[in-house]
Each structure stands twice: as C-alpha cells, then as structure tokens.
C-alpha cells in the first residue's frame, strides 16, 4: 500500500462555456473502492470518463501505476499502450449493459473476446474460462450460448461484469452499475459486486447518484456539485456525519425506511 494505483491531480474539463469539472484531485489505492456521488450535472460522469481515458481533460494529470514503469500519465502514453491497458488492466462497466456487450454474440463469446484479444487460441480453454467467470457472477451456465438480447437487464449486467473481470483487471470503472435495473434485482447484484470486488482485491471508481449503492460498495466517497468536489472521506462518515451543506442536503433527502 505504498503507492496509489491511480493518482488524479487538478483535473479540469470544460465543454465550451459549460464547466464539466475542475480542481479534481484524489488518489485511489489498490483494493480501494471510491464512490463519486452527485446529482445530474455534478460532473461525476466527466470525472469518470477523464480518469478512464475515454475523454481527454483540458488540464491536469491522471497517473496510473503501470506494472513495469510505475506511475505514468495515461495521456502521455501511446495509443496502443492505452488501448492495451483498457483491455487488460482496466475494466469499464457501463450503466446500460448493451453499451458494454456484443449483443449479437453469445454470453460465452462476450467473455471470451478479451481472452482472444490477448492471444488465447484454445477454444476449450476459452469456453472453460468463460464458464468459470459466469459462475462467479451467479449466471446460469445453461445459457452460456444464448444471445444477450434474450437476457433480462440483470443477467446482461452480470455478463458485462464477467466480461470485464476475465482479464483480472486491477482497476474497474463503473457508471451506475445497477441504475436502470429493477429494485429486486439490484440488491443481489450489488452484493455480488461487493463480494467480487473484495475477493479479487479490485480497486474501483463507482459513479452513482444513489447513496445506498455508495454505502454498500464503497469505502470512500467524494461528493460532487457543479463540477467540483465539496466533500471527501469515509463513506459511512459522510453519510452519517456530513459536514458540507450540500452533503447534508443530499443525505437528508434519502427516504428513511
């Protein structure tokens, strides 16, 4: 735990006159889960996209702890290097599983793709690995050859998660991983995610507007408003003892049952 796995410094991104985010700085350590919480327009998606190399910031650095060269600014890397990173060391779970899946390929093929992309050429081994990961996300193996178009949202999301984890990434980015799913499905999926992240020692950045998701999944949290971080700290501390006026407003708005 002596070096962070991702180090973000003074990140800034604007869309013309509209401020996406600014003054964003934080570090993530291996095995740490950070929730980025805020309402729509807070800039949390911009932060996620910049830190995952999907969007180039206007200012600031995003440094990742590469396996061989230590902390390196991802935007200083060559495109092949970055693309390779995004396919192996990193995972990205989209809110809508359709954005993260090949909808016209079977569940098994979806999981096997990353393996094939890094050179795996044995069909049986690919299929076995795919089966193993589908098992870990509690997906019915009978349906390994079915197309995702025939799955429920929750099943599609499980396949998307398995697809990302098959190359044993060290850092996973998630954009509202259970948003858009039925409430009855969310809880089980969230707990599966929580256990997996913990078992695999993954570091993760999770963007969510749902404080319940943050509490369940994340050790740490940053609260964003109008493109800036207003509060940062332990998830349970911010939720139980929010300091900033906006955090207090946000927390008090959750309906207690």
């Amino acid at each position, binding site marked *: 735990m002596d070096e962070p796995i991702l180090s973000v410094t003074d990140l800034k991104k604007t869309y013309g006159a509209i401020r996406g985010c600014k003054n964003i700085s934080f570090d993530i350590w291996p095995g740490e889960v950070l929730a980025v919480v805020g309402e729509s327009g807070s800039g949390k998606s911009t932060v996620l996209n910049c830190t995952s190399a999907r969007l180039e910031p206007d200012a600031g650095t995003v440094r990742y702890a590469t396996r061989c060269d230590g902390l390196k600014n991802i935007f200083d890397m060559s*495109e*092949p290097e970055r*693309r390779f990173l995004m396919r192996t060391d990193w995972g990205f779970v989209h809110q809508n599983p359709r954005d993260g899946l*090949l909808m016209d*390929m*079977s569940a*098994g*093929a979806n999981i*096997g*793709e*990353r393996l*094939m*992309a*890094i050179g795996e*050429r*044995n*069909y*049986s081994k*690919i*299929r076995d690995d795919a089966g193993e990961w589908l098992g870990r996300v509690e997906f019915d193996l009978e349906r390994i*050859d079915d197309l995702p178009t025939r799955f429920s949202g929750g099943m599609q999301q499980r396949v998307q998660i398995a697809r990302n984890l098959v190359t044993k990434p060290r850092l996973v980015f998630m954009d509202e991983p259970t948003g858009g799913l039925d409430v009855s499905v969310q809880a089980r999926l969230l707990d599966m995610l929580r256990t997996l992240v913990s078992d695999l020692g993954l570091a993760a950045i999770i963007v969510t507007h749902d404080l319940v998701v943050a509490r369940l999944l994340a050790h740490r949290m940053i609260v964003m408003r109008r493109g800036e971080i207003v509060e940062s700290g332990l998830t349970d501390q911010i939720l139980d003892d929010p300091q900033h006026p906006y955090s207090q407003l946000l927390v008090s708005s959750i309906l207690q049952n």
Partner: protein
Amino acid sequence: MNILSPEAHSKSSADGYNFAFLDEGTKRMIRRSILKAVAIPGYQVPFGGREMPLPYGWGTGGIQVTAGIIGPDDTLKVIDQGSDDTTNAVNIRKFFKKTTGVETTEKTVEATLIQTRHRIPETELSEQQILVYQVPIPEPLRWLEPSEAETRKMHALYEYGSMYVRLYEDITKYGHISTSYDYPVIVNERYLMRPSPIPKFDNPKMDNMPALQLFGAGREKRIYAVPPYTKVKSLDFQDYPFEIQKWEQSCSLCGSTDSFLDEVIVDDQGNRMFVCSDSDYCADRVREGTSQVKNNHQDTDVRGQE
C-alpha cells in the same frame, strides 16, 4: 513486360484507346499502389479507382490491376469459378484482347498473367506467373465493425480478437467453423486478409506460393498483395484446426480425387455428377488419360502381333 514502344502501342491497342484501356498516368498510380501492397503483405492500399466499362461487382478491381501490369509480351488467362468459358471470363478476356492484342490462353501453364474470380487454379503456379484476384469486399473485419476508421485502427494495432470471436461463435453454434469461402487468413504473421470468395479448399495454395498474388477491389478501391513465398495461415483454434473440404466422389470426367469439385445436375430427374471446377486442369488430365489409354492399346497391338 517491356516498356511500350510507340509502334507497339499503336499496333496493338483499340482505336482511340491507350494500351490496356487505362492511360499511362493511371497505370503508374496503380503500380505504385501495387509496390506498396507488395512491401506490406496483406495490407489494403487505397488506390484511385477509375470508371471502367462495366459496373462494380463485375471485376473492375481485378481488371484495373491487370491493366496496370499487362504488357505486349504477356499471355493472359481469365477464369471465373475455375472455368475459362463462363460469360464473365469470356468478356474480360475479349476486353483485354481488344485493348492490348496480347496472346490469350486457356492453359494455366502457358499463361504469364492469370485473372481469376473465386478460384485458384489446381495446377501449381511458377515464379514467372502473376495471379490477379477479383475482390468484392476487401475488409475482413467489415461484418464485425462497420466503421472504416475503427477497422483501420484494429489493423494498425493488431487487434484481431473480434475475428476469433466470430469463429468461436461458429464452433459454439455448429460444432465447427462454418465459413467455407472467403476464409480469413493472416499474411506474413501480421495482417488479417480476406482472400476473396475462393473456397477455403484453395487457402493452402496461397501459402508459400511461388507466384505473385495481387488483389483488386474496384468498388472499395483497394489493392493488396501476397508476395511470392509468403506465409499465409488460415485462422483457427489449436483444438479446432483449419480443414479443407473433401468429397466422397471423384471427377466424372478425369477421375481426380484431390481437386475442387462442382456438383452438376444433368437432367430433369435430378441426376447429378461431380466435375472439376478447374476446366483446364480437368481437360489436361483427360488428355493424359486418353494418351495413356492409346499407349496401352499400342502395347497390346505390339504384343498381339507377336
């Protein structure tokens, strides 16, 4: 192929047209593209495709490549589905005869330049020969990725995982890779290439072939090449290796058991026979067979006289 002298030029081309239909500037442009293609085996080189006197889909790419390299001393053979006498083959042969005056032939061994659609000749080619393929869609990743910008990146970064995914799906659905023609290959251990809609039966012939192989796609305006003696490997999995088609039958005309056979319905009752797709190869074998039979008869006569 010698540089064309003005006399040879005016003698052998059709009235009002340059030798081989295209102007010299266009031919130079095509040759530059070909040189680039040969330097990067399997890589698709864009070229400035011209309007040809036939529509896209009828071999304009192959014709432009041939027109770019043909010279008055060449002997041209044109085949379509292995046959010299289908409409397309006949028309293209006539076109070049008219615009160049070169010798044409149906015999593979006599040709210096062979333009083909959908087959590689059964007869082995030599270092003195060039094979020009007609290609409809040059991009092997097109069905997986509609964006041209993205497929170019995938080639540049050697990202061919999605092609293997397609093969994986085949094995899952059918128990084997179902692609039977235009089967994707890796050229020179680097570029993924579409060999044009030749049956996968022909793929092994491309590997280490002594002849130069050129590919022209007219609609898509791409040229690519496999230089002589280049490694061409068909995609497969370690536990599902590449296999070519086999027939139980042999050719009804020449008896061949290892050439690509076409199935022909012979009458209204649905009777069928299998014949070699490569008409020249088949005819050669029939000729050899007849002369063999003649020799046998002569031997008998001799013996008979004793």
